[in-house]
């Protein structure tokens, strides 16, 4: 699924990496626990989270995550945004909660990483 499609179905506002919306992702992973992101995520994954500190961006950088979607109206702090721009990431904010955001994306065909068989 393309990032611009995700933006549209989530009524999301893009606050970083606007020029790179033509990238494609295959999976989504929702978590406020970065330890789990580090343990389970693969590439071409979009991260859904409500946690707004810079360690979220650092974690995403390590995992080659191209885009982060902040849920339930959360917005990352300035340090996070600068770090995201520096790493060429796309950042979006959606008003929907984590559960609803996940449901919308799943319904539209974006799968969870369970289907890679990595979660044990």
């Amino acid at each position, binding site marked *: 699924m393309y990032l611009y499609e995700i933006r549209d179905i989530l009524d999301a506002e893009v606050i970083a990496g606007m020029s790179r919306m033509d990238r494609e992702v295959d999976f989504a992973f929702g978590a406020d626990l970065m330890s*789990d992101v*580090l343990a389970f995520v693969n590439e071409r994954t979009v991260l859904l989270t409500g*946690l707004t500190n810079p360690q979220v961006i*650092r974690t995403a950088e*390590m995992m080659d995550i191209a885009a982060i979607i902040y849920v339930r109206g959360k917005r990352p702090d300035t340090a996070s945004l600068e770090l995201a721009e520096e790493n060429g990431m796309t950042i979006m904010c959606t008003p929907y909660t984590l559960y609803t955001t996940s449901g919308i994306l799943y319904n539209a065909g974006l799968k969870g990483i369970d289907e890679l068989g990595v979660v044990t």
Partner: protein
Amino acid sequence: MSSRDMVILSYRVNPEDFAKAGDASSNTKKVLKKLGIPSDITRRVAIVTYEAEINITIHSNGGEIIVSIDKAKIEIIARDYGPGIPDIDRAMEKGYSTASDHVREMGFGAGMGLPNMKRCSDEFQIESQKGKGTTVTSTIYIHD
């Protein structure tokens, strides 16, 4: 890189400096990319160094991370100056954590760090001495 070349990166990691936690891993990752190391290997190294950096930041009195890169492998040594891990077997269990609520609020302290470092390593060693410190050594081989 010719067979004799070796690149060594060395970083100091300060206790409780969460603003800087990740800088060493970020820099390491950029260097590996520049050296043309395959992306799956680079990601594994990034996970090991980042988990180590977070661990040193959360739990220790400070420490260092040394990354040695040669043609065949990447070795990561994460060393801190205490307080040491009383029970390494427990620390290696998935889900076991001694992290504070403050650390958990930042999204860490799930007890996945050491097991995840081991998962990403081809060889993994951990040594700890109470009062002295902990040294984690991870080796990741570079395939062609």
